[in-house]
């Protein structure tokens, strides 16, 4: 039986034992934060060692010559969990390939800050909620594939500002409202929108509100 005097010791551990910032790198931290959100039964993220100077030698991560992450390839990798705002720190990211996994939750609106993103492939997951309006900030985006998820809400009109958008696929979701016709949306064909029971055909501006039926 310990004397009560010992209990005052409980105060001492509160003084944090802080370690110096040996390993700080924002892109590596962002990816490591992602790893903590994900369940990875097949250990595809095993090589993600946060103590390394940068994440460029981690598998499924590709860097440019300046050691900035430009690709994240985790398609078809049996991962589940959610995405978080920290991915927005990958400022040089060009391709975010997370297709055909079991990722759920909302698509973080912060992804809209990825100004260099060319391809965003989130198809074949369980994403829910709305397509973030902030995606209008993806100025370099050419390929946006969000098909086969559980996305709801209308297609944000802000996306019509994505002048480089070449491929847009939101089929097999639960979107509603009408389909935009401006900007790049003039050239996408109907299969891009298939199997959204509440999606109502091309918008007729002035006649029907774009979120008609939402």
């Amino acid at each position: 039986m310990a004397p009560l005097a010992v209990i005052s010791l409980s105060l001492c551990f509160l003084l944090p034992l802080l370690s110096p910032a040996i390993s700080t790198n924002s892109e590596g931290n962002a990816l490591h934060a992602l790893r903590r959100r994900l369940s990875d039964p097949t250990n595809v993220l095993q090589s993600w060692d946060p103590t390394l100077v940068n994440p460029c030698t981690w598998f499924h991560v590709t860097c440019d010559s300046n050691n900035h992450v430009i690709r994240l390839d985790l398609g078809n990798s049996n991962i589940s969990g959610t995405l978080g705002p920290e991915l927005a720190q990958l400022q040089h990211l060009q391709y975010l390939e997370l297709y055909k996994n079991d990722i759920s939750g909302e698509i973080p609106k912060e992804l809209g800050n990825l100004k260099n993103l060319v391809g965003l492939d989130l198809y074949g997951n369980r994403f829910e909620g709305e397509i973030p309006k902030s995606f209008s900030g993806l100025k370099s985006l050419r390929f946006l594939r969000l098909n086969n998820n559980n996305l709801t809400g209308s297609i944000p009109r802000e996306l019509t500002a994505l002048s480089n958008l070449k491929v847009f696929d939101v089929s097999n979701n639960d979107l509603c409202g009408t389909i935009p016709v401006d900007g790049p949306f003039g050239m996408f064909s109907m299969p891009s929108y298939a199997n959204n029971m509440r999606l109502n055909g091309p918008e007729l501006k002035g006649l029907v509100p774009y979120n008609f039926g939402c």
Partner: protein
Amino acid sequence: MDSTQISRFSLFITFFSCILAFSFGDNSSSTDAHWLLRIKSKLVDPAGVLESWSLRAHICSWNGLTCSHDEAFVIALNLSASTLSGSIPTELWNLVSLQTLDLSLNLITGSIPPEIGRLRNLRTLLLFANNLSGKIPTEIGLLKKLQVLRIGDNMLAAQIPRSIGNLTELRVLGLAYSQLNGSIPAEIGNLKNLVFLDLQHNSLSGFIPAEIHNCEELQNFAASNNMLDGEIPASIGKLKSLQILNLANNSLSGSIPPEISGLSNLQYLNLLGNRLNGEIPWELNHLVQLQKLDLSSNNLSGTINLLNIHLQNLQVVVFSNNALTGSIPSNFCLKNSNLQQLFLAQNKLSGGFPLGLLNCSSLQQLDLSNNNLEGELPPTIDKLENLTDLLLNNNSFNGSLPPEIGNMSNLENLYLFDNMITGSIPVEIGKLQSLSTIYLYDNQMSGSIPMELTNCASLTAIDFFGNHFSGSIPETIGKLKDLVLLQLRQNDLSGPIPPSLGYCKKLQQLALADNKLSGSLPATFRFLSQLSTITLYNNSFEGPLPDSLYSLRNLKIINFSHNKFSGTILPLTGSNSLTALDLTNNSFSGSIPSRLAISTNLGRLRLANNLLNGSIPSELGRLKELIFLDLSFNNLTGEVPSQLSTCQKLQHLLLNDNHFTGKMPSWLGSLQDLGELHLSSNNFQGQVPAELGNCSRLLKLSLHTNNLSGQIPREIGQLTSLNVLNLQRNNLSGSIPPTIQQCKKLYELRLSENWLSGPIPSEIGKLTELQVILDLSRNLLSGEIPSSLGDLLKLERLNLSFNRLGGELPSSLGQLTSLVTLNLSNNHLRGQLPSTFSGFPPTSFSGNDKLCGPPLTSCMDSAGHENNILSSTAVVCIIVAIVFTSTVICLVMIYIMLRMWCNMRKVLISNSSEGGGNGIEQIKREDQERWMYGDEKKRKGEYWRVMSSMALVPSQNHDDHISSSCIFQVKMDTKKLGI
């Protein structure tokens, strides 16, 4: 009497006295002696504390025994801390005159038997700190005279018996550090004399019984580290004598009852690690005796309304890790306060630095880290003259560091990292002779690092990572004899490393990476014998390494990458504890030292982009922990030693861009963890080893630009994780194996510039994740392009140029909407280009026989496609017809509109006279409805015909209401036109 008779007699006596003892309660010291000797024989006594227990001496002189004044009875047995083991002998329960039994701090095992209830005279029972197990017997409740019961620090399990409530004389009850479960019995409230109750570190659950308030004498109540839940009973406030209340680390919920303010003698209150919510009750200000208060790690919210001006005895306040908001009250402290430690970390406190704290000049430790505090640090911060630890990290403080900080002469630890502090380090910092740790990392500080910092003779750790410090490292840094950590990474420091740094002989970690430092490494580094980590990457260091670095035997991590170092790397091989050596992108020359193999824990060896020559030493095969081997972009020659096959943990093997020769080793197939294999740009010959198919975790395989010949092995299809396959620029022949379809995760496939022949296997169309490129150019591929290539919907670049592909271009290729670049040139293709290809330059298709359509010449110009093309006269006719018809339609439309407009006016006028009103609105509404429901429902609408005529749909039902309107005439007109 002979000896047998004696022994028989003594046996008789013993037996008789037993009878006496039991039947008449006779417990004279002589019978006690008998039992004690039996007890002695049963206890294991390695230290011999029971040696004096012998009939040769009087029982009252036996070690650990105390007799009554008349020496008639043994009244106390004290064998504490005597290394005794074994279980409690049953004979002990016969010593019924015992008033004190102390067997604490031994190694006694077994349980406490129910017979303990026979020791009715016991006043003190101390069995704590043994290995007793089992439960506390209910019979303990028979010991009515018991005043002190301490049986904790054992392995006693089960519940606390309710009978403990019978021990009404009890003053001390200690049951801590066991495995007791169940709840605290309400009968504890019967213990009116209880002063000390210790139940810490058990598995007690349930509520704290409200009856506890009956223990009016209680001074010390500790039940921390259990699983108690429910609320803190308000009645606890009636314990007027309570001085210590410790309920830490339970699952208590609800708010802190304001009645707790009734504990007017409380000196210590610890509620840390519960689920308490609500605000900190203002009534706590009544606890004027309080010295230590810990409410950390709860869900407490609201503002801090506790005032040191009321609680003048406070020494320690810990509110860390709650959800407290607002700022700290300005009148928090008195000048003559006793507050020494104030921990408010990890809350949501806002506002500027709490000036109210500056009156707490007694403060020694202040932790405000991880809050939302902002603004500048006050110059008057030096009023906290006794402060040793100042933790303000992870806030939003800005402004510069006030020079007055130099007056805080007791300061030992200064944590300001993760703020937005600007400006330079004041030179006054040099006055801090006690300063041991200074962490300023992740701020916006600039200016040079003042030389005065090196006057802080006690410094052990400096971390300035991630600021904008410029200038050079102070030349006098060597004065810091106790320095263990120097982290200056990611600043704008320039100039050479001062040679005096070598005199910081205790230095273990040196991080100068990501600066603009230059010059060569000083020879004085040989004195850094404790150095284990040195990272200098991304600077402009140059010159050869001093040979004396070889004497640094404790080096574990070396990263000199991206500098201009030259000469041999031998000086870095003195340590046998290296785990990572990264010299990428320097100008090191000479050969790879075989001595590297003595560091058997080496995991990462990266020597890429240097001028290394010679061959790979076979000794590297001893590096069984090697995960990363990068020797790319050097001048290495010879064959890859087969000994490397024993590096079975290799995940990255990068040997590209050297002059390696010989066959590509087949043992590569045994490296099961291999994820990245780059052997490109060498002189490897022979076949691609089929064994590579065993590297099932391979993600990137790059063998391009070698002299590889033979076929692509069909085993390539076993690489089901493969993302990138690059075999271009070799002498590979034969056909592309259809098994490649199993590499389902390929996003980049390059097989160009080989001698591959035969058709493109249609199975390539199964590689639907192909994205970056499919490059099959400059081969001898023939036959038609398989239409399955149209399934590669993600493909962005397709190059099939310079082959012998023929036949019609499959129209399915038009589905490749992701294509950014396309090259089908120099084949024998024919047919019409899909319309989606019109945006590609003509050169994408040049050198083919008969391709047509935009961007090439229109197919109607090409011969051989007449059947698709109309004669030019027909075209002219059609155009004339179209122009004529559209003109007519336009004129009709204008006519209709005019008539409608005039008619509408008439109708409106007539409707308004009928009281119909709002005609236009009705038109709009019906228009909308029609959108939704179609035309069928609309027959009743008066203006429906207006709409239908606008849509040029003739109606047969035209004369219901309007007999002589112009609308009717319009319809007739449109009918005549036959539209």
